[in-house]
């Protein structure tokens, strides 16, 4: 992984973790879009965003307990807390993917230039 990628990964994780702790879920899309634009890839912002979500959830504490209660309320089974965590991870990945893909696409379109765009 290039130095640039490492920096973007770390910055994405830190910034997004802080934003998530403030309740700014929509920052996932924005930060992932910036990261996608910066590195031109989708996978890196997605992994970074999921790391940020995991960090923020662990930071709040009590994740397993909350997951168990949510699984009881939503899935009618107290033992499916792991599934709630999986669903949350998938949701975070989708948010990040949407942002990262948009960012990466903008970068690609920009790199082609007006002449290339005319074809």
């Amino acid at each position, binding site marked *: 992984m290039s130095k640039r990628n490492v920096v973007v990964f770390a910055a994405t994780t830190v910034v997004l973790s802080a934003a*998530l*702790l*403030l*309740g*700014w*879920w*929509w920052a996932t*899309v924005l930060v992932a879009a910036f990261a996608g634009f910066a590195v031109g890839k989708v996978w890196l912002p997605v992994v970074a965003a999921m790391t940020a*979500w995991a960090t*923020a*959830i662990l*930071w*709040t*504490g*009590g*994740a397993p*307990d*909350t997951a*168990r*209660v*949510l*699984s*009881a*309320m939503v*899935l*009618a*089974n*107290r033992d499916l807390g792991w599934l709630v965590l999986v669903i*949350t991870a998938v*949701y*975070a990945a*989708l*948010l990040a*993917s*949407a*942002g990262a*893909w*948009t960012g990466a696409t903008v970068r690609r379109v920009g790199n082609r230039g007006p002449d290339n765009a005319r074809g």
Partner: protein
Amino acid sequence: MALLLVVLVPSAFPVGGLPALGPVLNPGDGVWGRSAPVSDEAPVVPGLAVPAVISFEANGLAHVSAGSDDDLFLGIGYTHARQRLFQMDLLRRRAAGQLAEVLGASAVESDMFQLDLGLARSAERDWRELPRDAPARQVLLAYSDGVNAAIDELIARDLLPENFVLLGYAPRRWTPVDSLVVQRMFAQSIGFTDLPVTFSFLAKSLPADVFGAWFPEVPAIAQHPYDKGPYRKLPLTPAPVGADPAAHGADPVPGGGGGGGVPAVGGLAPLRERLADLPPGTVNRIGNSNAWAVSGAHTSTGRPMLAADPHLGFSLPAIWYQVEGTSPGYHFTGVTVPGFPAPVLGKTDRFAWGVTNAQRPTSLFYLEATDPARPDQYHWQGEWRPMTLVRNRIGVRGEEPREHVTRLTAHGPVLQTQGVATSLWWSGALPSDNLSALLNGLRAKDTTAFRASLSSWSAPALNFVYASPEDIGAFTVGVTPQVEGHDVALPLPGDGSADVAGAIPVAALPAVHDPADGVVVSANQREVTGDYPYRYSTSYGFPDQGWRAATLTAALSGATGRTADDMAALQLDERDELAVMLVPQLLKALQGKELAGAGSDLRAALAGWDLRASTGSAQAEFFERFATALVRRTFQPWWDQYHVPQDPDGWLPLSSGKSSPVKDVLRATVARWVVSDPGNRFFSLPDGTRRDATAVLREAFDEAVGQPAGQHTVRFPSLLGVPALDEGPFPAGGNSRTVNALSGETAEAGTAGPSWRFVVDWSAPQGAARAICPCGQSENPSSPWWANGVEPWRRGEYWQVAEGPAAEPVSTVKWRLKPR
């Protein structure tokens, strides 16, 4: 772009019943992190005058210690809200008919009913009429301040219960009216009954002499009233014709006089159907509570003792929150209802008390005379009158608001508009200042003052049983409507001929103080004998026939050297008095009968049975089936003969497996016939075929033998109706007739019983108490205090009540509240 939309839309907006995912799942203020354990804190609490301390024991029991009386109730409000805010919000919303606003269309029926019943109307009137200088006003304001301080803090710290997040709303500010409406909701859950509606089907189907024989005024089995007389007949106390604040004797409609009205036609099936669809707790269906006191002559210490266990529907979280309160003017320990500041049961340093439901009817149903040609009018006292119309707007989550019109006659709200308009006079709608009564009671120096303070109690009708170091006693409180010449336990004509004429004066209500035998038992039995000079309860006006009172009276009378352990053991007693009556008769009836296989085994098992409905007892399980079969075998032919109709709740069909007050009364009636009138004509068939008790006992035995065995269980349902959060079902003993009661939708599936067991021994200067609730102090399923009382409760254990300095060493968490 499509991916962006697909992800962002459900993130930002609710879709398909799901909440908006972004706000719910985000780690900052979403559902994560709301399970933070309770730990030491030092919050700044606006409204607090001087520092206060709230401490918690390892099991979650709370102690609030404050420097002023107002601060005490502020502290209780703060504690309630920190531990039970979502439950409190549901309670006030449900009571006031605002549930659909957050739960959606499924709650609209409940809201319409509550708006008709008018708890919010009554609570608002009570608040308006509470004098400016009344201590209760100060207490309600302080309590509200405490709740609101907690709401602000929970919002600021992103710690609102996760249910708020999932439903996507934040609680509004708490007001004194909210507390008063919660108080009335509690009164409704234990004091509003529809038994007159149920029994109206029978009264209409059966000839009067048959109805009287099956459903006598005084229950058929031996009664143990705590007030045995002599009684005084005093003039009635004035009571309004209409209890609801919006009900009044409207002026006649101009030009509409005369005509004589339209006789009530049709039945009450629509009302029955309406009531059957409402959530549990809307209508009281449980009549089981125990409270007793014994004098020092019966105890090992020479000092009185009290035991009390109110029986209610179980839920997690429960309706109770146990707290010790200490301030310059108060010191008490007891159970409070989250949303209401004062304890309903408990103890002070001078006395302890328990409560049970009193028997007398306080829900009167009026069949109004109406005419389709005169919409929204009713005929009363010889004139056509306009109904009062109250227009309500019901907010519905995700839908347009609905309009609902509440109609009121002079008697109260019209609960059934289809067919015969049926209105309700309910004592729970009367003006009430129960909080002042309770506060005065908490400050009372002795039991005489305690009794006097509660004389103004309006509803629900309750028995208070008390014990102090010096004395014991019991008394009933609550307005008792009297109607001349009519049975108030059945629907009444609404034309003015059966209006409430007044109430039994407080001085004539059942009461006993230091009885000669040194024993006071209140277990929902009829409190007085048949000589009582006022119209009182009937066997069909209240769902208890007096079984538990018989067990308790037998166990306590004449006994000496009783200890607190004995009192606790008696709370767990599962002796079944119906079995005591019937099993010897059944065994006698089976003598000489050829039995093989299961029948033979069951006869042998019954012969060796201790007549207790213990956990796992095959005999108890069989006996329940047998008792049901006995009622069916005896009465079903007559049921058919008189064409008794079905009802939406399934209470009337004798073949139904549902628990039912109708069957409860019939069990007592047939048991008495078996024992003392074995040739009763109703054992025979309507076609003249002769049968006697022996023949019917044998038939019932054979029927029960042929049925599959079940298992008695107890379950503690989640208040949210989320089965995965329930505790249980667990194997359990007890039934609706045993002191350790258990009841539910069916005899096998118990969901109601002793909601708090409480024993106080006055040998210690300030009383030594123990208590247990089958619940936990917290509403948070992730909390160690969620359902931690269930297991000790099931094992018959108690938690010691630590008070004052004794609470200090057992407290593991402290909140040191600081004034702003």
